[in-house]
């Protein structure tokens, strides 16, 4: 006898339905935690010591990997485009192009990716371990809101420190691109610096700083929310960490598109 529940169609629909349900639950949790975070931030209920600690962790601890990723990416791009531009007689644009790419896009998005893998994943696994170990429940029984104590400092650290990470990593990226273009296209430092200014606009820098702050806040809140809402055991800690990383990647890609559409379309 035909049983629809045993068909591949049913399984596929079920899988899609579960995926959609999980998506909506995660979105709801992030929204709820973000609302509560804003509630505390707007009332200035901020744990300054914890915020400073998390800021140091966010920016300083992640800096080596962030600078390596941004520096290497910009060096590789410079390695690819500098000789080609030099062949076309467009050496004068190498600096401009490097600055443009770094400030408008690469500095922010590559720093974001590095921060997600280094800091976002650690936020998520840390809070998930606390949740499954009942430490978050203990905090609630002791009448201390875990959002105020754990999430707000991490969120503020992301919003405040990400622009600094962006500035440092973009600077390193531009320097790396300059060094590589010197060796691959015989471009003098002076020419590189001169053309650099043609691609640097205050407006671009301001937009990039704003974008970095959005990226930082987004990474922090998604990572904290995925960790905070974990139930179960060690397996769920792993799932929460993976979810935090995937969602953060997707979220900053979407933000990047929105920023590009609003400011550069």
């Amino acid at each position, binding site marked *: 006898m035909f049983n629809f529940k045993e068909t591949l169609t049913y399984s596929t629909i079920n899988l899609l339905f579960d995926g959609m349900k999980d998506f909506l639950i995660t979105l709801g949790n992030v929204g709820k935690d973000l609302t509560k975070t804003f509630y505390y931030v707007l009332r200035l209920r901020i744990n300054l010591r914890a915020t400073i600690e998390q800021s140091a962790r966010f920016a300083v601890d992640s800096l080596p990997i962030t600078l390596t990723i941004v520096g290497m990416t910009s060096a590789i791009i410079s390695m690819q485009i500098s000789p080609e531009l030099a062949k076309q007689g467009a050496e004068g644009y190498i600096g401009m192009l490097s600055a443009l790419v770094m400030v408008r896009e690469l500095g922010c998005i590559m720093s974001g990716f590095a921060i997600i893998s280094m800091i976002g994943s650690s936020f998520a696994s840390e809070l998930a371990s606390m949740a499954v170990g*009942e430490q978050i*429940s203990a905090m609630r029984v*002791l*009448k*201390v809101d875990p959002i105020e104590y754990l999430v707000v400092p991490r969120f503020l650290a992301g919003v405040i420190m990400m622009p600094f990470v962006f500035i440092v990593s973009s600077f390193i990226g531009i320097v790396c691109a300059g060094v590589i273009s010197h060796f691959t296209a015989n471009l003098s430092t002076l020419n590189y610096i001169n053309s650099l200014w043609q691609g640097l606009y205050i407006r671009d820098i301001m937009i990039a700083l704003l974008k970095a702050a959005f990226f930082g806040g987004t990474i922090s809140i998604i990572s904290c929310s995925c960790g905070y809402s974990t139930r179960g055991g060690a397996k769920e800690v792993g799932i929460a960490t993976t979810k935090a990383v995937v969602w953060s990647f997707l979220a900053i890609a979407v933000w990047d598109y929105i920023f590009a559409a609003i400011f550069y379309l």
Partner: protein
Amino acid sequence: MGIIVKNLYKLFDDKKVLDDVSFSVQDGKTLGVVGFSGSGKSTLLKIISGLLYSDGGVIETTENTDIAMTFQYSALFDFLDVYHNIAFPLLERKEYRKKYNTKELKQIVKEKLALVGLEGIEDKFPSELSGGMQKRVGFARAIVTNPKTILYDEPTAGLDPVSSTLIEDYIVRLKNELNAACIVVTHQMSTITRACDDVILLYEGKIVYRGKTEEFLKADNPYTKQFISASLEGPMEIKSAI
């Protein structure tokens, strides 16, 4: 006043986890809550402590006092040392934040640690302590705000018999010191006999027995007989409980 629980209900999906549970515990008394796994014991504690919402019923406690809870695996904050774990609510809660200076805080922590038989371990981290010591630090943290209701979730789980006896003694001691109403969820008979004044037995979310501890041990009740003898035969179906 202690704690009064009236007609408590809790549903998970469509399954009744707590079904019309009512009891009261007076100040200075300890109620033991026993039952097989899945009978609703931990859910009951979570509802009383405010970690879960009930689907019906009323819980009344002494006004303006905290409800403290200790957890099965202590739930100490592993990123804080013992001093900061115990002082945590006093440091982080708005109403206490400016009430005590550092010297007073240190004194309070010292006193609470002495109450659970631990001294001079303020600088240690939870990972440096044994399971029994972690439980006692958890007790000290729970009582730091002088609560009038203390909930213990499996306080002797995972401990050796001697450490269990020690923990049971501290449950009695804290109850007497604070004149608190205590509820102990446990599987261990020694905890019931040594630390509890009254006992309720839960099965499928319902109270199937209530009485004094000494009566519980010799009651002519098929549920208590099955529980005490740890028998598979009896009115409680093990399959449905675990």
